[in-house]
């Protein structure tokens, strides 16, 4: 579930990726593609392009590598379309293919499998947040500044691939926990554990740095901005 409002009242995370087609329309397109209208495959995958790129990027963390992985995965999806039975959503099925392709490339590049993480009690291990005295909300308009985007990318790069995958699928693409579990091939419970750890890791990596972030062009503007957020936490 991705609520549009956080429980504290601020705008909340990414809107879930919207499918351009209903399940019935997707089925119709697939049947027509399988019937020989191959060009319709372009139309079928177009709504998922960004999400598929992000899935590959979550594993490979390099633009060119992620792009190559998506291209190869999409061709594999086209070749295997007759095997799509509609038990999963199309975007989940496509995401599985992209993740498999990206993981395979990751293994070849590193000469080793993705290290399985020892996952256990979410309260165990060193997943403690950065303790801050306070936090001044950074509005999304600050993303126009490259240094902020760079900091977010840098923190993401420090996560394990497994944690990065769930964070990107869930919090960047807006997939549900169930879809994230289906796409990554793990249980919903493990998705929640990984999500917890990934989110706290991001807070720990970024909290101290961004805690002193200064809004562009504002001197003491935070107080005015916060005061303007009536009822904001």
């Amino acid at each position, binding site marked *: *579930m*991705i*609520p549009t409002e*956080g*429980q*504290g009242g*601020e*705008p*909340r*995370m*990414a*809107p879930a990726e919207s499918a351009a087609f209903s399940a019935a329309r997707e089925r119709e397109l697939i049947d027509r*593609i399988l019937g*020989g209208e*191959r060009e319709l*495959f*372009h139309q079928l995958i*177009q709504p998922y*392009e*960004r999400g598929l*790129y*992000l899935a590959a*990027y979550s594993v490979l963390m390099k633009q060119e590598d992620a*792009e190559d992985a*998506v*291209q190869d995965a*999409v*061709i594999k999806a*086209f*070749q295997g379309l007759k095997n799509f039975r509609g038990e999963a959503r199309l975007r989940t099925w496509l995401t599985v293919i992209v993740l498999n392709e990206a993981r395979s490339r990751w293994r070849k590049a590193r000469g080793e499998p993705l290290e399985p993480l020892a996952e256990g009690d*979410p*309260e165990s291990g060193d997943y*403690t*947040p*950065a*303790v*801050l*005295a*306070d*936090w001044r*909300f950074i509005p*999304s308009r600050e*993303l*126009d500044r490259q240094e*902020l985007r760079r900091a*977010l*990318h840098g923190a993401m790069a420090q996560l394990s691939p497994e944690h990065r995958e769930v*964070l990107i699928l869930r*919090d*960047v693409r*807006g997939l549900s926990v169930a879809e994230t579990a289906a796409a990554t091939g793990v249980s919903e419970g493990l998705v929640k554990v990984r*999500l*917890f750890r990934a*989110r*706290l890791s991001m*807070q720990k990596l*970024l*909290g101290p740095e*961004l805690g002193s972030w200064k809004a562009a062009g504002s001197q003491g503007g935070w107080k005015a901005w916060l005061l303007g957020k009536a009822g904001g*936490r």
Partner: protein
Amino acid sequence: MKLDCKHVWAQVSDYIDGEVAPELRREIEEHLAQCRHCAAIYDSTHNILVLIGDERTFQVPVGFGERLHGRLQAWMDAAGADA
């Protein structure tokens, strides 16, 4: 306060997703109202998720779609493949 800080930290992710039971949610909110450090942890975590969820943070490379469909079309043309 019924909950200590570590219990609140352990619930931050589920709390953000609105997936804690009503009674626990009430206890967390009571704690956050009284503990500035946990309030800052919640606010910062939530804020960071808002930022990474913004489309400007993770953008596809310029021309990505054109190259993807170009490669796919070239493959279709070369293979003459049937789906």
